[in-house]
C-alpha cells in the first residue's frame, strides 16, 4: 500500500470486506479503539510497541498537493520508527514545553471499513473527531485516518502505517505536539 493513497470509498465498492467474518472485523476494530485509548491516556511506550519497527510510517500530510511525493513535498509529520521513537522520548521527558502540561484529549473513531490487501495485510479507514484541551483553550480536530495493519500467524496485529488527513489544515494549525 503506497503511502499517499487518498481515502477513496469507491475502492470498497467490491466485496472484499464482506469476506471478513464478524469476529474478525471486531478484532481489528477493537485494536484501533485500544490504540485510541492508549493515546488519550498518554501511554506512549505501550503505543510505540504497537508499531512494526521495520515498516512504521506515521504520516500527517499538509494541505494542497496530497497525495504528494514525500521526496518533493513537505508533510506535517512523516515519521519512520526511529523518529516515532524520538517523538515518544520527547513526550516522556522534561523540556518539551509545548506538552508541559500535556494536552488532554478525547477521540472518537467511527466504525472502520476494512479490506484485506494481501494474506497478512489489511487496510482500515475511518473518520475521527478529537477534542484537545490545554492551557485555557480547547480545540477540535477532525479528519480521516487510514491504517495499514499486519496480522501474523499468532493473530498478533501490528501497525505498519497510519495516515491522518486532518480537515482544515490549510487554515493554520496550532500546537500539534500531542499524538493524533
Amino acid at each position, binding site marked *: 500500500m503506497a503511502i499517499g493513497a487518498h481515502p477513496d470509498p469507491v475502492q470498497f465498492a467490491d466485496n472484499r470486506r464482506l469476506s471478513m467474518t464478524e469476529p474478525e472485523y471486531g478484532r481489528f476494530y477493537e485494536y484501533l479503539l485500544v490504540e485510541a485509548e492508549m493515546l488519550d491516556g498518554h501511554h506512549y511506550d505501550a503505543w510505540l510497541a504497537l508499531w512494526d519497527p521495520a515498516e512504521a510510517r506515521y504520516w500527517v500530510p499538509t494541505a494542497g498537493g496530497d497525495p504528494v511525493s514525500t521526496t518533493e513535498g513537505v508533510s506535517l509529520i512523516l515519521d519512520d520508527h526511529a523518529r516515532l521513537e524520538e517523538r515518544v522520548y520527547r513526550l516522556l521527558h522534561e523540556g518539551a514545553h509545548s506538552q508541559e502540561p500535556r494536552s488532554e484529549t478525547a477521540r472518537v473513531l467511527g466504525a472502520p471499513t476494512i479490506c484485506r490487501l494481501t494474506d497478512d495485510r489489511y487496510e482500515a479507514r475511518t473518520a475521527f473527531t478529537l477534542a484537545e484541551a490545554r492551557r485555557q483553550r480547547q480545540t477540535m480536530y477532525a479528519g480521516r485516518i487510514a491504517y495499514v495493519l499486519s496480522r501474523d500467524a499468532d493473530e498478533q496485529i501490528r501497525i505498519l502505517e497510519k495516515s491522518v488527513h486532518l480537515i482544515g489544515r490549510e487554515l493554520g494549525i496550532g500546537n*500539534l505536539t500531542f499524538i493524533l
Partner: protein
Amino acid sequence: MSGINVDDLVRPDKVHSSIFTDPKIFELEMQRIFYRSWAYLAHDSEVPEVGDYVVRSIGRQSVIVTRSEAGEVHVLLNRCRHRGNAVCSLESGNSSFFRCPYHGWTYKNDGDLVGVPFPDAYGDSLDKRGLGLTPLPESDSYQGFIFGSLAPQPTGLSDYLGPAKEVIDIFVAASPTGKVELRAGCQRTVFHGNWKYVGMDGYHASFTHRSVYNLLKRKGLRAGRPKDASLPAKAVAYPNGHCRLIGGRNTANALEEYVRPQLETDEGKAYFALLEGKYGADEAFRVLVEARDPHIGIWPNLQIINSHVRVIRPLAADRTEVLLYPALLADTPPAINAERLRRHEWFYGPAGFGQPDDAEMFERNQQGLQCDLEPWLLLSRGLHREETLPDGTVVGDITDEVPQRSQMRVWAKAMAEADDR
C-alpha cells in the same frame, strides 16, 4: 492623529509591553509598517508557467501574484474595481482571466479589465483602461524572491535589502544552478501571540529547545554553544531591520556531523560533483556549510531559516500566522532535497520537535505581558559590547539582543512617521 507617542514606548535598552498587546498599536502597525514598507510576497518558482497565480497578503490586504501571457510577474490587489469583491477566491491556480463572481467583471491575468457585462448601462462613461486590477505601487524581485509595497518607496528593493542580499545569495548557492524552488508545499501554523516575537534570538535555544538538545545528545551529536574564539557566533543587525544569526563553531561542526556523512552517499557524491564543477572543491564545502542555515530575517515579514522560507503574517495583536515553505534546490539529486525536507520536519511545523516550543514561549509571553505593573521588557543584553560598522551594521555576540534592539529602532522610526508622508 494616533494618540500614541512612540518615544514613550521604545527606549534604547527597553520596550513597553503595550507594543505587543495593544490593539490600537496593532492597527497603527498595519498602516505604518505593513502598508508602507517593502514586504515579501512569493517566490518566482511558485508561478513558473504563464497563467500561474498565488494569492498572498500584506497585513490584511489580499494580493494576487500572477504570471501574464508575456511571462511577466504582476502584483495586483485582489479587489474588483466595480464594487470591491475579492476576484480570486483560490489560494493558487492557473488562469488566463479572473472573473469577479458578483457581477461578472473580467480581468486578464495582467490586471487589464476586458469584460463588463451589459456595458450599455454606462453609456460612454466607463473607461475600462483605467479600471484594471490595481497594481501595487512597487514590486520587484531578488533571486526570485518577489516583494511588493502598497506605498511608493524612497529606495529600490536592492538598496532596501542591502547586505542581506549576500545572505540570500548564500541560500541559493547550494543549488548547482543557483536556484531554489518553493514547490514542496507549506506548513501553515498559528499561535496566540504578537507577530514581533518571531524574531532572531540567539539566547533562547538551550532553554526553549531543551528537548531538542536532549535528542541530539542521544544521537551523539554536539549540542549547545561551544566557545571557540576563532569562530565566534554572532548576532548581526543590518540596516533597515534585517538581522542575522551566525553560528560560528556550531556551523563549522555541521561540516563533520552532517555534510561529510551525506557526501558519502551516491547522491551526495553526485551533488558534490555538481557543486565542485561550479565552485571548486574548497568553495563547494564552504557553500554547503554556510547555506545550511542562513538564519536571516528580512524586515518585516520574511525569514530564511535552515532550508525553509518563512512568512510572518500578523492577524491581531495577540494572533499570528507563520507559514513555512521548505525550499528545494533546483537541479539537485532528489535524495538531497528529500533529506532537506525530513530535516525540516524534525524541528519545524506544528508537530516538529522545536518550533512548537517557540510558539509555546510566544503564547506564554503574551500571557505574561498582561501583568503590566512593571511594563518594561529589557533588551539591554550586550549593549555595552556591540560594535557598529561604517555601513551602520551592528555586530554582537549571538546571545546578545542586537537584533531585538535593531528591529525596535526600525519599528519606532516607522511608527513615528506621520500619516501624510
